[in-house]
């Protein structure tokens, strides 16, 4: 591909990097052409990395597609840049009792079928999600007991126990609100039933969703005439389409395509910390990894800079702990984990580890790069006298043994914000003694107390402090070796205006998203 690059491509790439701030950190905005004006007759094409599989059931990941398409809206939304929940279809909310949250529904909003958004329609939509056979992670009967319309303007969400995170849960795309007519015969029909800036008008199964501008959008004038969201599961194809101009925005660009796109004319590459950290999970419940010194020795032996530069080709940053540094709950800025082989050998000797107990790393095959990551780790550990074998397995094949504690180390990664824009679910499931997804088999009473307190803390700042404290415990105990913070990378044509990258791809097309005519 490089052979086709021309000098202007390199200049464009340099400008692109300058515009995009060069490095990766928080959310990035498509700077576009400062002087360019939006042409409201333009349509836009977005290449998305997944296709809807569950017939638009909102409890499934299909909700992400409806949300990024600018169709589906929720009561609240999450402002990535500000790190807080902000109003959307609800204008305000308050905790009316320890187990009740009241949301005031925005007035003057109509669904795309012309019916009015009311407290009753909101309650009905939310109850439909609650009653799903496979419930949504963010919003189900384990944490929500009931949703009722208190009056024409107020919806009450009740919880079994005090839950300060209800507004976060209602920012989850799975809690999107559709008109009552969307729910019939046990299925969900989003066509003409959303409230967002774009109305879905047609779907080509497994290929694309076409949307037109919602002329009556409550949030102001929509800057595009319409959009096509394509479902392109192959990353290289998404990259090629934004390069050729067939797509205006391509989401989730693979590492292997980055250098080409950064050099491509008329393409801007946007990067932000994703809530995913590639992690070497260690079985804290089985010897020799039940010894904290062995775990610390493993951590100290790793050369994360080399790992990020080689396997990830610089498209990921060395991890400093369980959180990405830009996350508001990451706490004080941590220093990068530096390789210290002498210290690692000392720790290993003090733990009494001998090489007659080799360790095994399971590298899940769903992430192709983990085979190379495992090889680098194998070499790093060899340097301190730990012989390592590598097993490549499908995650589904590894899971039973990992959950049962019959393993040494596992290379994997988790989305910390998979359910809501707050890490409580991840920190609870993955690291508390009773955690349902505690792959590390870690158990620490102080950690559990911290998480229990955080789960009840309404004040966001205080809650984040508690998350930072929990993260510190995990780090001090070297529960796992956190390797690199993965980056969410999107690419957009330079004539796309006002595109704000969302690392979780919930919000892509908004009323403000625009294209210049050129």
């Amino acid at each position: 591909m490089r052979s086709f690059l021309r000098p202007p491509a390199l200049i464009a790439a340099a400008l692109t990097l300058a515009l995009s701030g060069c490095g990766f950190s928080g959310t990035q905005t498509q700077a576009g052409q400062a002087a360019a004006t939006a042409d409201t007759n333009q349509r836009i094409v977005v290449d998305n990395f997944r296709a809807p599989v569950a017939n638009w059931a909102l409890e499934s990941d299909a909700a992400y597609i409806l949300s990024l398409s600018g169709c589906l809206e929720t009561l609240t939304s999450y402002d990535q840049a500000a790190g807080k929940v902000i109003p959307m279809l609800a204008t305000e909310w308050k905790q009316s009792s320890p187990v009740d949250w009241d949301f005031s529904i925005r007035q003057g909003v109509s669904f795309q079928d012309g019916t009015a958004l009311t407290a009753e329609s909101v309650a009905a939509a939310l109850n439909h999600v609650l009653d799903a056979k496979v419930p949504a992670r963010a919003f189900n009967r384990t944490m929500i007991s009931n949703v009722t319309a208190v009056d024409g303007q107020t919806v009450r969400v009740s919880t079994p126990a005090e839950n300060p995170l209800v507004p976060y849960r209602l920012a989850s795309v799975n809690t999107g609100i559709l008109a009552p007519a969307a729910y019939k015969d046990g299925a969900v029909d989003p066509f003409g039933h959303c409230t967002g800036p774009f109305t879905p008008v047609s779907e080509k199964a497994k290929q694309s969703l076409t949307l037109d501008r919602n002329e009556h959008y409550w949030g102001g004038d929509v800057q595009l005439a319409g959009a096509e969201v394509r479902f392109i599961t192959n990353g290289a194809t998404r990259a090629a389409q934004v390069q050729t101009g067939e797509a205006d925005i391509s989401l989730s660009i693979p590492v292997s395509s980055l250098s080409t796109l950064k050099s491509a004319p008329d393409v801007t590459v946007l990067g932000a910390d994703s809530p995913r950290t590639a992690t070497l999970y260690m079985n804290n419940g089985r010897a020799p990894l039940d010894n904290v010194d062995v775990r610390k020795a493993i951590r100290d032996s790793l050369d994360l800079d080399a790992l990020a530069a080689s396997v990830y080709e610089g498209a990921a940053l060395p991890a400093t702990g369980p959180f990405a540094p830009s996350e508001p709950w990451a706490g004080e800025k941590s220093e990068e984990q530096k390789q210290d082989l002498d210290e690692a050998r000392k720790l290993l000797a003090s733990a009494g580890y001998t090489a007659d107990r080799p360790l095994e790393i399971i590298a899940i095959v769903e992430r192709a790069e983990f085979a190379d990551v495992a090889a680098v780790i194998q070499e790093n550990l060899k340097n301190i006298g730990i012989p390592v074998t590598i097993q490549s397995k499908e995650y589904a094949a590894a899971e039973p043994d990992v959950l049962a504690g019959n393993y040494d180390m596992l290379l994997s990664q988790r989305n910390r914000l998979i359910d809501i824009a707050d890490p409580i679910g991840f920190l609870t499931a993955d690291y508390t003694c009773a955690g349902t997804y505690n792959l590390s088999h870690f158990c620490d009473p102080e950690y559990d107390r911290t998480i229990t307190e955080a789960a009840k803390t309404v004040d966001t700042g205080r809650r984040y402090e508690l998350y930072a404290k929990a993260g510190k415990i995990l780090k001090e105990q070297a529960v796992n070796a956190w390797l690199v913070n993965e980056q969410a990378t999107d690419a957009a044509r330079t004539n796309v205006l006002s595109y704000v990258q969302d690392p979780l791809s919930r919000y892509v097309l908004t009323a403000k998203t625009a294209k210049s005519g050129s």
Partner: protein
Amino acid sequence: MIPFIAKRTATLVAAVAVSSFAVFLIPYFTPGDPVRKIIRSRVAGDAVDNGSVQALGESLGLHDPLAVQYFRWLGDVLSGDMGLSYVSRTAVAGQVLPALTVTLSLVTMALGIAVAVSLPLGIIAGLRPGSAPDKTITAVTQALIAMPEYWVAPVLVLVFALKLSVLPSAGWTDLSSAVLPALTLALRPISYFTSAVRAGIIDAAAADHVPAARARGLSHAQSVLRHVIPNGLVPLSTLFAVWFAGLLGGSVIVEVIFAVPGMGRLLFDAVINSDIPVAQGGVVVVVALAVGVTTLADFVHRLLSPAVGGSLA
């Protein structure tokens, strides 16, 4: 004629029964819980709630004995109902038929290209075996076998979509979007078809009736046109059918790279996601079509081939 059809119908029934049962067993004989796979296909993420696993397994009848599940499905299929997808809860037929239409179009185009290219090449090579054109054609077409689709496809995208900007890089919208996937799929059949046509022509040219025809006063060109080429093409009908059948469900790499919503992708996703009804429904249709096409090819071959004397017994 009747024994031939009866024999082939029995083959069809046996093939459908065996393949559908094999597909049915895949999720149970590969590691991991099928219900968890179904849930993960709906909601990306690793942590799956045990309560959801239990409830979904119950509601889909996946806790019943395997034989009960299989014969329940078989009974439904025999009554014309392929059931609902475990993942989307929509009718399997509604997923299989559109995908089949796409794949039939793609495969027909690919094999059409392959025939159009390999016929002249095979005839030229077969009429002058050992000549420079024969050696060149053989070398080039043999090289095509060694080019994997996952390599050919990006190269074609690079040239025709990125460099020349004359064809779309992916999608399934109009004829132009089918060109690159069809071309990618056509390369290996071109190689096999050319080789088969060449061999057929050489055999036909060596047959006794060709000198006899020349002795009756036919010119070389006339004997080639009337006796060598028609007989030399007979093996192609069988090979065409085999490739047609194989590509119906076997074009998954091309379908993924070019975002083509065909049968290969449908079956691949269904197996990965433990969506047993879709996998079974798809396999039944593909196997039935494959057996049908190869039967038709056998029929044609037997009618045309002097070696089997036009027998259909």
